[in-house]
């Protein structure tokens, strides 16, 4: 009996022992596993948990502001809402993508395209899906946040062009950097989704305007929502630029050229500072800044009137009669003609078996240089041109800066052409025919100039032999308000001309506007004397159709002490006197009436 009890006890005891052994055994397993996870692989696990929660987000720097000469804002930045997708945070790919497609006006293809473009980047990199969404869309996305893990709305500065089309060609636009650009070396510190200046001043001054993007280390939860900011490196805003441009004058031209095709540039002949620059038709730069849609882009790119072309610096047209000033300058300067030289105009000029016509059928009769300029007598210049020869005309053009880029601070400026015997030989391998000189002397034939080049001619005369490279930007100012760069006038031409040459050409150009027989008499002004020269250039019709002549007018004012030089082109506008000169008149009127008013106001003050 006793043995039995003892046996029973040992059996029971062994059960307790086993229980304790199992307990210790399991505890050891747990500890080994914990040791493995927390000590051996702790570093890695820590990194994984950090990766889970920390995202590095870019804080886009606001782009520099663009001001006109009076400090009025032409372009700045405002907040916009952009949608990003973070691949890593997407739980159910189809659900998220389909959700976005149904909530926003965006196609699945567009989203996939954008995701495709960033394939090589880490899955934690947020990919921009849509820019500048409306408040309605923001509300829709926010309300459906739960079903859209991985989707984020980011508030970012967006470029805003206060005057839209008015400054389209001058200021240009920013747009998202393209894949091709990203591959280039010069854009190596840009990443997908960044905005970059693509046109106009935005492109030319990209380095100054861009600023430095900041960085934000943020904690996100399992749905990718920002919980808090751990660390922030503030962005440095871009530098501001002040232009030589006067918004008021720009607006006057903008209105004058409304619904027309053409271009106009106004500069200060004493510095080359660009007061206004307008090209028409124009595009809306704000459309680009908010991520242009495919349809909009195609509408602009395929438009037959070429709104993307900046006609002022890229449009090459025969200068027509405005070019007579070049012939006149060279003729007088070289002594081939003088004040008393007279040619007879009977309405035509027979040469080489054909008759070159004067625009006035009845002819001008006996014409001296003054009348030839004032009344734009073709025959006078046919004679002069033949005596000069094309090379001397080319020589003078080259001094003034015609036929080559003016060096204006805008990208993609085009040169032009003023022919020479050398040029013809080089290009066609043929000798020059004198008959061609006849056309060139009145700005027809193989003469192709941009409005920007012709304003150089106006400046050249206005300044009596000196002109400067046109420059739009006056100075660059840092965000703290420190001027970091100013632009001194850069001389383009500086020649000592004979006093008589200058006097005769200036008198002629003054007569064009202010004498009863002048071709631009209709555009004379009461308070200020404007000098100018009209031009009516035969256009090379599109596809053989002749849509009419291009109208030109170059001018400077006031006649005796010029402070503004103007070049106006109206494509297919007809006569320079009727289509182009009135634009210059409006500009001059606006500029000098205002000055007069200010003067009067000051006088009142002094009383």
């Amino acid at each position, binding site marked *: 009996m006793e043995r039995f009890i003892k046996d029973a006890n040992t059996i029971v005891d062994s059960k307790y022992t086993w*229980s304790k052994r199992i307990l210790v055994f399991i505890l050891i*397993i747990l500890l080994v596993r914990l040791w493995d996870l927390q000590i051996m692989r702790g570093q890695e*696990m820590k990194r*994984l948990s950090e990766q*889970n929660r920390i995202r590095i987000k870019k804080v886009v720097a606001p782009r520099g502001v663009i001001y006109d000469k009076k400090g009025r804002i032409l372009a700045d930045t405002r907040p916009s809402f952009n949608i990003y997708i973070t691949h890593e945070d997407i739980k159910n790919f189809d659900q998220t993508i389909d959700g976005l497609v149904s909530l926003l006006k965006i196609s699945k293809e567009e989203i996939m395209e954008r995701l495709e473009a960033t394939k090589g980047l880490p899955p934690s990199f947020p990919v921009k899906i849509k820019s500048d969404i409306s408040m309605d869309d923001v509300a829709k996305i926010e309300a459906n946040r739960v079903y859209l893990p991985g989707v984020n709305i980011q508030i970012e500065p967006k470029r805003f062009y206060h005057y839209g089309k008015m400054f389209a060609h001058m200021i240009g636009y920013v747009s998202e950097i393209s894949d091709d650009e990203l591959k280039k070396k010069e854009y190596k510190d840009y990443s997908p989704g960044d905005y970059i200046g693509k046109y106009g001043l935005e492109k030319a001054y990209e380095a100054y305007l861009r600023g430095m993007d900041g960085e934000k280390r943020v904690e996100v939860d399992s749905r990718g929502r920002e919980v808090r900011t751990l660390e922030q490196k503030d962005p440095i805003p871009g530098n501001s630029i002040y232009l030589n441009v006067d918004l008021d004058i720009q607006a006057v031209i903008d209105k004058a050229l409304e619904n027309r095709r053409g271009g106009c540039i106004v500069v200060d002949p004493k510095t080359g500072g660009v007061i206004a620059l307008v090209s028409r038709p124009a595009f809306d730069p704000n459309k680009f800044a908010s991520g242009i849609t495919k349809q909009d882009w195609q509408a602009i790119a395929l438009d037959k009137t070429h709104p993307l072309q900046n006609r002022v610096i890229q449009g090459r047209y025969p200068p027509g009669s405005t070019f007579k000033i070049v012939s006149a300058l060279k003729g007088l300067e070289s002594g081939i003609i003088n004040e008393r030289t007279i040619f007879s105009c009977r309405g035509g000029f027979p040469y080489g078996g054909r008759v070159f016509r004067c625009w006035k059928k009845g002819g001008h009769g006996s014409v001296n240089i003054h009348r030839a300029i004032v009344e734009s007598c073709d025959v006078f210049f046919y004679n002069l041109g033949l005596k000069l020869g094309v090379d001397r005309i080319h020589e003078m053009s080259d001094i003034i800066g015609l036929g080559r880029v003016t060096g204006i601070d805008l990208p993609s400026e085009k040169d032009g052409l003023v022919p020479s015997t050398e040029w013809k030989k080089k290009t066609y391998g043929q000798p020059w025919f004198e008959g061609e000189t006849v056309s060139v002397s009145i700005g027809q034939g193989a003469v192709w100039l941009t409005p920007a080049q012709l304003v150089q001619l106006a400046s050249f005369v206005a300044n009596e032999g000196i002109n400067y490279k046109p420059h739009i930007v006056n100075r660059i100012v840092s965000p703290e308000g420190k001027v970091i760069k100013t632009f001194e006038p850069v001389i383009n031409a500086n020649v000592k001309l004979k006093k008589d040459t200058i006097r005769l050409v200036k008198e002629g150009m003054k007569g064009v506007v202010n004498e009863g027989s002048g071709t631009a008499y209709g555009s004379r002004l009461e308070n200020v004397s404007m000098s100018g020269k009209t031009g009516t250039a035969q256009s090379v019709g599109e596809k053989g159709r002749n849509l009419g002549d291009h109208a030109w007018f170059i001018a400077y004012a006031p006649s005796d002490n010029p402070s503004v030089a103007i070049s106006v082109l109206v494509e297919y506008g007809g006569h320079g006197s009727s289509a182009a000169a009135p634009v210059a008149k409006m500009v001059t009127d606006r500029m000098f009436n205002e000055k007069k008013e200010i003067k009067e106001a000051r006088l009142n003050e002094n009383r």
Partner: protein
Amino acid sequence: MRIDKRRLYHLDWYLIINGLVLFGVGIFNLISATSSFYSGSFNFIIKQLVAFFIGNGLILIILHYDYRAIAHQSKWLYMGGLLLVVLVLIIGMAAGGAKRWISIFGINIQPSEFMKPIIILFLANMLYERKKHSVKLGLKDIMRPMAAIFIPALLIIKQPDLGTGIIIVLTGFSILWFVGLKKSTYALLFALGAISPFIAWMYLMKPYQKMRILSFINIDADPSGFGYHAKQAMIAVGSGRFFGKGYMEGTQHKLQFIPEHHTDFIFTVIGEEWGFFGSIILFLLFAAFIWRCIKIAQNANDEIGAIIAFGIGTMIFLQFSINVMMAIHLAPVVGIPLPFISYGGSSLLTVLASTGLLLNINMRRYMF
């Protein structure tokens, strides 16, 4: 019946303090675990504290009666518990979805939790005579206990509450082993143990439960679903390293990378915030508590007390080890709360009532 004053001298203060410390750690940890919730920690903590006080009242009631008397009446408890489990099933089906709890006066109670100590009592009452006389259980002898285990277990798994079902089955079998089994019975039980996973897989488990098993085997098979949570739990514990990230500093649970981090995945919060060091302390607290259960069983006045104490110790041991293993990817994800630590009134009440039974057994270990 009044408690003999001498009994109070024999209250196991060691167990009480051990339990209180565990509960204190639990509350402290729960504040951090629930701090990221939209409604804040306050409601959770209040509810947990209310459950704690109710639980203490329950302990007093349990101490008032002799554990033998309680065990003798356990068939009523068993039938009542079974009724509630069936009720949950019926209500759940009527509601057209799964349900683990029933609402009584606005309080959600989870009858499957209460079923765990009830079955222990029921089995103790059924088998103590056998143990007393060291009669090993033959095949015929285990039929009744098996039925007593499986009827509620299967009903509970059906709810579906796989975790509690597993705990009940494993605890029940441990008790059978503790009582003593014949060799043939061992063979049968091993065979049963071998085929039951297949039966469970084929007939009992829901697709999402199967997914959990599959993602346990290959954690990367479903990186966004169950595998994702298991992985995130592992990352949470691992990222705690030696000393942890610090109290309230756990990012994994705060940023919602881990679901149920206040209930079934509560260990991830401790692992992340207190590291290896804190985890060891928690393990030692549990080990000491379970060790104490074994001790109480060993010192119990009679076999019925020994079986109850052993059963409770086993239950707590199983819950603790499976819960922790779940968080460190040593076990598939099944819903098992960590005793004393996890949020949940039913779970806490069950643990406290069990502690009451342990105290009861310990207090009455001497004959007067």
